[in-house]
């Protein structure tokens, strides 16, 4: 009786060991397959056509306006002026533009990087809101311009959503459909530029800042 019990135990143990080894091997094969698949998709390239965003002269205008604000306090109080200067920045937009405007070929992984670079829209919205709260104290009519600021923000958000969809479905996209969608990277940068531009113009207007 004892012998048969031990023998049965041994057999069970042997079978369980076999099952464990088979399962571990299967999981390792799955890992290898997924890694090869991800390597292939991360290194696939997508071409875009109709990239006409290469105009950097617009940034000079924005730069000039920001310099005007930096050199002239207008009617802003010291506290408000320092807060405005703190929130005012165009460097990130310019940096993104320099990085992506001249690009015609994208690797899948570069689309991902672009998305993460442009992902900080919550910060931008908060930044804009805080500055507008200050501006309304000086010129109540500025509140009307908040609408256009948010419409740029919405467009910026939609551009990011298009890129996000592209990232979410890497196995279903092809060169034809994706080239238009990838242009949304430039679109998002452009809308970010419009947001900063609108904000800068409103700061000048509300503070009666002159050259």
């Amino acid at each position, binding site marked *: 009786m004892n012998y048969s019990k031990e023998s049965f135990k041994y057999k069970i143990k042997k079978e369980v060991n076999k099952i*464990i080894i088979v399962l571990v091997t299967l999981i390792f094969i799955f890992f290898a397959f997924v890694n090869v698949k991800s390597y292939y998709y991360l290194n696939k390239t997508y071409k875009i056509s109709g990239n006409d965003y290469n105009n950097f002269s617009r940034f000079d205008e924005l730069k000039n306006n920001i310099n005007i604000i930096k050199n002239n306090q207008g009617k802003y109080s010291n506290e408000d002026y320092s807060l405005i200067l703190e929130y005012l920045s165009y460097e990130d937009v310019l940096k993104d533009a320099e990085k992506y405007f001249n690009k015609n070929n994208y690797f899948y992984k570069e689309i991902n990087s672009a998305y993460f670079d442009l992902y900080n829209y919550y910060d931008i919205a908060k930044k804009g809101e805080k500055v507008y709260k200050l501006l309304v104290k000086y010129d109540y009519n500025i509140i009307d311009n908040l609408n256009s600021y948010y419409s740029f923000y919405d467009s910026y958000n939609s551009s990011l959503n298009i890129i996000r969809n592209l990232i979410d479905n890497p196995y279903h996209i092809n060169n034809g459909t994706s080239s238009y969608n990838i242009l949304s990277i430039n679109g998002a940068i452009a809308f970010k530029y419009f947001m900063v531009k609108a904000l800068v113009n409103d700061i000048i207007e509300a503070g009666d800042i002159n050259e």
Partner: protein
Amino acid sequence: MNKRSLIKFILVLINMIATLLVIKAEISFTDPLTILLFSLVPITLVMFYYRKSFKNYKKFQFAYDVILMILILASLIFVLYFAFTVLNFSTNIIEAEYSGLYFFTYIVVLMTLLLFSFFDIFKKTNKKNDILVIIICLVTILMSLRVYMIPGFNQDIFVYYTLSNNIYSYVSEFYVYFFILNVLAIIHYYINKV
């Protein structure tokens, strides 16, 4: 000293550190309660494994059994409470799985493996199990390095990405498989006692 087990212990330790770094565990390991909660189930499992070690010392054996019984009860209460909390605060089981279960259970399994590996350093062990654990740990560590190598990988939005069907999702899916692998290693360890 069992050198093979020492290698196993070091690899499990690296694996644990790598996992905590990748999933950016927001757990304060300086908090004694957290450490206790994370160690409760692993300590119970290890004590259960060595439950017959003091059979020649009846007094010790009795005290050991009492402590083990208390630990089993505490672990059961804790596991049930944890399962209840996760399921209660999640809208569906998939979300529950990703929000905390896969992360917590994987850490607990790793802790168990770490404790077993530590005691194995001082005794004879099953060669097949050691090799199995070493291979699993090496693969897991390499996969964790792979996560760091993904361009643009952002740990802050890692949790959100686990729910979407994109290229990043495989990263989190891997942790479910890592969990299964380590559970298999523990089962293998239990049934192949030396």
